[in-house]
């Protein structure tokens, strides 16, 4: 019975490089100026509700949700709104932001700042609708990187029925340790967060999927969930991209999510990041909106890589300075890990809701090798966790054969980069697929709009 589970097809195991596994989290100092991009989540950008010169406190709403799939944004600092302008964010482009000059650290009343653990049992007044409403109002979005508004996931479409909530504590991406530190330091809160999510989704099964390279976290959480027989901690074999929703569903409950537009809830699973569970706990029990998060700042050449509790809006420059400053020479700066992270062109990009890591990679490690011709080894096919044929999708995308790539399910690609990682010819497979995918998605959207 004790076979360690993992997803069925494909996957790789890159060097872990978890430099900061045992580095305890410290609260990062307040920034001098906090920058809040209005698009920190998937969906419509938030709409500012403050204007220049307004005073804000920690936890004041500064932008409201701009649509159904959207989330409000809260100030993480107290001070004065200096301007509503544009600044470079993780997309690489200048997007609308709210900039706040920090003065003091005054919190909004009503936020419970005590460490006292609130259990679900102690709050019988909580209803599923009430929890969803609190989560929505607190601006909680997926904390694993993609940033999908959490409350939308908790309200599945009428055609699907949720059966379980799976907490994604896999952290399969190299370098990143923020989720691990969160589990080690706030295990109780995470369990309560999961219980809240289960209550909100009206299900009575909960799973926490953790890779076996985090034995301490597995032991700790197994201990914590003993009291609740509905929850099971599932140790998983180390395999990238196990943190992908579909892979995790496959690994934990042995069900395969069909091709898009199907989502995990179509097979009965709601997947939430461990950071999201913590944010849900804080939103519901402590009335604390989402404005700070655990972020790993890491890189082999950083003097003191570490884990930080960061107020959102803090420019990455300040975090890198805390770790001993940017190493000399050329470096590659990533928001996220080396596999899925987004390369940045500016160190002034702020930490957002989805920034689980700031990774600095040296020039020699980051530099790509020149691409050679495809040798038809089909390694990319064998590692693709979605069962696609990456070499074919890449070539057809490069040749702009959009009908062909659509028929070959390019939209199923989760852009994990396993194909490119494994390619012995160093071909830019994912680059081509990602471009083709965005093109095909555009074509599909245009077609649907016509109907």
């Amino acid at each position: 019975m004790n076979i360690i589970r993992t997803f069925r097809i494909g996957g790789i195991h890159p060097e872990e490089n978890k430099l900061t596994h045992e580095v305890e989290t410290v609260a990062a100092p307040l920034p001098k100026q906090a920058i809040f991009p209005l698009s920190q989540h998937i969906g419509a950008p938030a709409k500012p509700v403050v204007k220049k010169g307004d005073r804000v406190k920690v936890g004041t709403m500064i932008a409201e949700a701009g649509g159904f799939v959207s989330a409000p944004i809260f100030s993480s600092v107290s001070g004065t709104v200096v301007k509503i302008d544009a600044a470079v964010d993780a997309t690489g482009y200048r997007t609308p932001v709210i900039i706040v000059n920090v003065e003091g650290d005054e919190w909004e009343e009503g936020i419970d700042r005590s460490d006292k653990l609130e259990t679900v049992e102690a709050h019988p007044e909580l209803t599923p609708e009430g929890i969803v409403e609190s989560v929505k109002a607190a601006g909680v979005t997926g904390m694993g990187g993609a940033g999908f508004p959490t409350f939308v996931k908790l309200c599945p479409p009428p055609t699907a029925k949720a059966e379980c909530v799976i907490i994604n504590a896999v952290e399969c991406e190299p370098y990143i340790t923020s989720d691990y530190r969160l589990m080690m330091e706030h295990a109780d809160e995470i369990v309560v967060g999961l219980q809240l999510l289960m209550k909100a989704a009206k299900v009575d099964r909960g799973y926490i999927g953790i890779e076996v390279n985090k034995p301490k976290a597995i032991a700790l959480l197994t201990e914590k969930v003993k009291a609740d027989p509905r929850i099971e901690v599932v140790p998983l074999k180390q395999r990238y991209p196990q943190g992908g929703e579909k892979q995790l569903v496959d690994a934990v409950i042995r069900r395969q999510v069909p091709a898009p537009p199907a989502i995990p809830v179509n097979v009965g699973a709601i997947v939430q990041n461990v950071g999201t569970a913590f944010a849900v706990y804080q939103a519901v029990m402590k009335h604390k909106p989402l404005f700070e998060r655990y972020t790993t700042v890491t890189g082999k050449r950083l003097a003191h890589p570490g884990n930080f509790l960061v107020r959102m809006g803090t420019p990455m420059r300040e975090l890198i300075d805390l770790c001993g400053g940017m190493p000399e020479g050329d470096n590659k700066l990533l928001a996220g890990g080396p596999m899925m992270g987004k390369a940045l062109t500016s160190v002034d990009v702020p930490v957002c809701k989805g920034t689980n890591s700031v990774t600095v990679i040296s020039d020699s490690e980051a530099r790509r090798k020149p691409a050679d011709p495809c040798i038809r080894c089909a390694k990319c096919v064998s590692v693709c966790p979605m069962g696609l044929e990456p070499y074919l999708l890449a070539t057809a995308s490069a040749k702009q054969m959009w009908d062909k790539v659509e028929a070959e399910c390019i939209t199923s690609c989760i852009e994990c980069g396993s194909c490119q990682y494994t390619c012995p010819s160093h071909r830019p497979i994912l680059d081509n697929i990602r471009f083709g995918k965005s093109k095909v998605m555009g074509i599909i959207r245009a077609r649907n709009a016509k109907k």
Partner: protein
Amino acid sequence: MDLVLVAVIALGAIGLVSSTVLYVCSKKFAVKEDARIGEVAELLPQANCGGCGFAGCAGLADALVKGADAGSIEGLFCPVGGQEVMGKVADLLGMAVVNTEPMVAVVRCNGTCANRPRIAEYSGLRTCAAMHACGAGETACGYGCLGCGDCVAACQFGAISVNPETGIAEVDEDKCTSCGACVKACPRGIIELRKKGPKGRRIYVSCVNRDKGPVAMKACKAACIGCGKCQKECQFDAITVANNVAYIDPAKCRLCRKCEKACPTHAIVSVNFPAPKPATQPAASVGAANVEPVNEGEAKQ
């Protein structure tokens, strides 16, 4: 012997029946096509570039013949064949020649290596579309030419190339047929089809940066900062400033070049004008047959 005879007769019979069926079908289901469509199509250059807005030359020929029947071929134009071919087509169809001004593709970016410093290195797929999707590119300007040559690949006539010195696409106006393929290929919408102008003389704002002045200027020394000086200078209301970038309407512009002198960042570029007198200005690249639309020398003066 018998066997051979049977085979010959059988095959012959099958052939006869099939040919009868084919003959009947070809007569009964014949599609009547106006003979003129073929004739017009023969006059067209057969580049099938799509520059006319139709899928190919046959499409345009069809539209031209239908238009002639309806009484007007206005709005139908083959940019590759130009006025000459359209004149022949009009003669064939017995229509009046519609005069259309020749157009040329213009790359609206001044961001040479000297004007626009590189702040990052891009190591991904070297196409403009992929680079554009990844972020602003290697410079701080999120609007300027990426220099990976998607337009070069799109051009069927070899009229556009990326200058290795400036890193910006340049149009060879002798070869450009204004088919518009490069306009569609550019992910940033930098390339515009403009009137070629008398003797090829034209003035345009060689920048599409919509950032506010200081930001645009920080990213590129020759960016349009939307200051509106050119707008004030223009006596013909040809210039509008919207979204922090000026635009010269070629229909109203009288080529007086006052705006060019007024522009503090030299974002306005004029081409094919005769050399100014030595006393006033040193010559920019002027008068040559292949004047580059974007020229570092001009931009920096």
